[in-house]
């Protein structure tokens, strides 16, 4: 496997068009500045790059497969479908790519304590995992709603030695967990590194997370080249904060023939208030350290959001996505709970893959679009995670009673 190219579309200003920036309390500004400088330094440091590479290969099990979904392709009868299997990574999702990078940076910066927010629990588990690996202290902030929805992941984090704080403020979901993690960080910047879980927040997070996740498209591009000698016609990934999607897009942004599509969580429907479809329903705003797009009311209060998927119910999106949407380089489409659940069952039955409900938002779009495309066209769809964590809630959604 070739080393991860951390200098792809370098961006030291933290701006993506008008989006991005560092809208964060003064208490944290010096620390963010330290982090940005440390990242600029270490991303060109051969030792850092080798360590990162070795961890990705030996610990995270990279490269992940680019798998030709033959039965799905035949069944849908249109474009050739390839699945980028981030579900096969250690810890079962793309999140590990990012936490390895950030934790390694934290270690090189001399930090001893990692804190993180988590929605579905995937990022929390990934952070707890890497903290255990590096022997660092770890505390994870998780909305109370989510600790209830994802009890197994809470226990998993504790098993890995992390302390989980259920957050009871606000609507008790991901955004509130981010608020709580930020607040904790302001009280302990000296020894603590806030390991952000998505390509969101103030600079340098959107840049770092994009770079660490860009391994997804660096690999898929080379793998598809090997397998077919071609570029894909379309890349599809689900979008919560946007980390797996921006990582899936990164190496194709400068290839105009490749259509980039982000599948957002429409919840009960883009036109309802029970949605998390930020790009379609949201508007420009400033929140959680970044200028980007948010679901908000006219005054600028951040709306409660909803999706069946705990990993996608975030009221914002990373600034690079806001920019890709504004410039038309990428399209963002809403996928409802019902469609995602149908895709969950579909990919299980046709390919024998139980994929994360988050990822199934992308799969659902592929189900829709592939039949409209030619057979010589290629779709690469990222499976951001595996779906074991979702089995119980899908059963519940379907009204099936399971004795646990």
């Amino acid at each position, binding site marked *: 496997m070739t080393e991860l190219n951390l200098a792809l579309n370098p961006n030291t200003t933290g701006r993506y068009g008008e989006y991005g*920036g*560092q809208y*964060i*309390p003064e208490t944290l*500004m010096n620390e963010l500045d330290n982090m940005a400088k440390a990242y600029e330094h270490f991303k060109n440091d051969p030792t850092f790059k080798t360590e990162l590479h070795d961890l990705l290969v030996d610990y995270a099990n990279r490269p992940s497969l680019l798998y030709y979904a033959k039965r799905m392709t035949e069944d849908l009868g249109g474009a050739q479908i390839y699945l980028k299997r981030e579900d096969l990574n250690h810890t079962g999702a793309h999140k590990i790519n990012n936490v390895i990078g950030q934790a390694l940076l934290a270690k090189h910066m001399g930090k001893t304590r990692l804190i993180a927010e988590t929605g579905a629990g995937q990022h929390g588990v990934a952070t707890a995992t890497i903290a255990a690996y590096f022997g660092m202290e770890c505390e994870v902030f998780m909305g109370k709603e989510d600790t209830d929805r994802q009890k197994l992941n809470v226990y998993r984090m504790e098993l890995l030695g992390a302390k989980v704080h259920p957050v009871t403020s606000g609507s008790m979901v991901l955004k509130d967990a981010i608020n709580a993690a*930020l607040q904790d960080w302001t*009280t*302990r910047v000296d020894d603590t590194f806030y390991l952000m879980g998505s390509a969101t927040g103030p600079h340098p997070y959107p840049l770092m997370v994009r770079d660490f996740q860009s391994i997804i498209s660096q690999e898929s591009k080379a793998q598809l080249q090997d397998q077919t000698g071609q570029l894909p016609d379309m890349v599809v990934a689900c979008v919560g904060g946007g980390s797996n999607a921006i990582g899936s897009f990164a190496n194709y942004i400068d290839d105009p023939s490749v259509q980039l599509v982000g599948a957002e969580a429409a919840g009960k429907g883009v036109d309802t208030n029970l949605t998390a479809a930020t790009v379609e329903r949201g508007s420009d705003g400033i929140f959680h350290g970044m200028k980007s797009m948010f679901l908000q009311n006219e*005054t600028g*209060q951040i709306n409660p959001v909803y999706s069946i998927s705990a990993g996608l119910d975030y009221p914002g999106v990373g600034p690079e996505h806001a920019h890709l949407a504004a410039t038309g380089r990428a399209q963002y489409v809403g996928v409802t709970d019902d469609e995602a659940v149908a895709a969950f069952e579909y990919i299980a039955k046709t390919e024998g893959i139980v994929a994360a409900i988050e990822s199934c938002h992308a799969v659902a779009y592929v189900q829709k679009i592939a039949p409209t495309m030619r057979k010589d066209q290629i779709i690469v769809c990222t499976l951001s995670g595996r779906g074991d964590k979702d089995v119980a809630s899908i059963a519940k959604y379907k009204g099936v009673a399971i004795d646990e």
Partner: protein
Amino acid sequence: MNSQLKPVFTNQKAFIPFVTANDPNFDTTVQNIVALAEGGADIVELGVPFSDPVADGPVIQAADLRALKDDPDLPMDRVFDMVVEARKQTAVPIAFLTYVNIVFQYGYDAFCQRCAELDIRGLVIPDLPFEERDELAPIAERYNVDIIPLITPTSGDRIAKIAGAATGFIYVVSSLGVTGERSQFNNDLTGLIAQIRAVTDVPAAIGFGIHTPEQAAEMANIADGAIVGSACVNIVAEYGTQAPAKLRDYTRQMKAAVSGVAKNPAV
């Protein structure tokens, strides 16, 4: 720029209390502003409630929740209207504490214009650091509205540029973290203030965690004034619509303390 807030600190130590708008309702907020003014507040800091006040501690977060509970779509114009009502009874200088998204959604120009019309002379925006202030500061300056910067114990070598650009007054954060009552302050506040004074003659007021008259006196001794948020908000939380009278009494006590004429110096 012709700051309306800087002169407040001339020949006196300032006491700057804080309440959250619409906590618990419109009328009480108006009366709270008036009561704080009557009690001797030099500047009233009025918090615009926000759904996600990341820089605030549990007390002010709870106030924001109360303010938005029955009124999640509270328009900014309703908050301005509270000031319109208060202005019928008091000319006390007012500054807003607001998160930047509220200002951004209203429109920077329209927001500053409305502030100027109502004699709201300063904006404290905790999530608008020095690096981002240029998108708002030139507009605010046109309307003579000060953008009040925050300086914290972690500001370090940022102090010179922040203080250098400051107008009105500087909000010095007494300790790390979020707002809330504290019994311990960062022990080098004196050094922090000295660093600021080396750069600018813009007054510096200390806030975050002050609640007793003794603490306020101590802070006023080090700096040009004391800002008190959570303690006032606690009074509103406890007394609700009966808060104005309590706030008036509390402000009298605190203003006396910062002026060095406390009736009951520590026994």
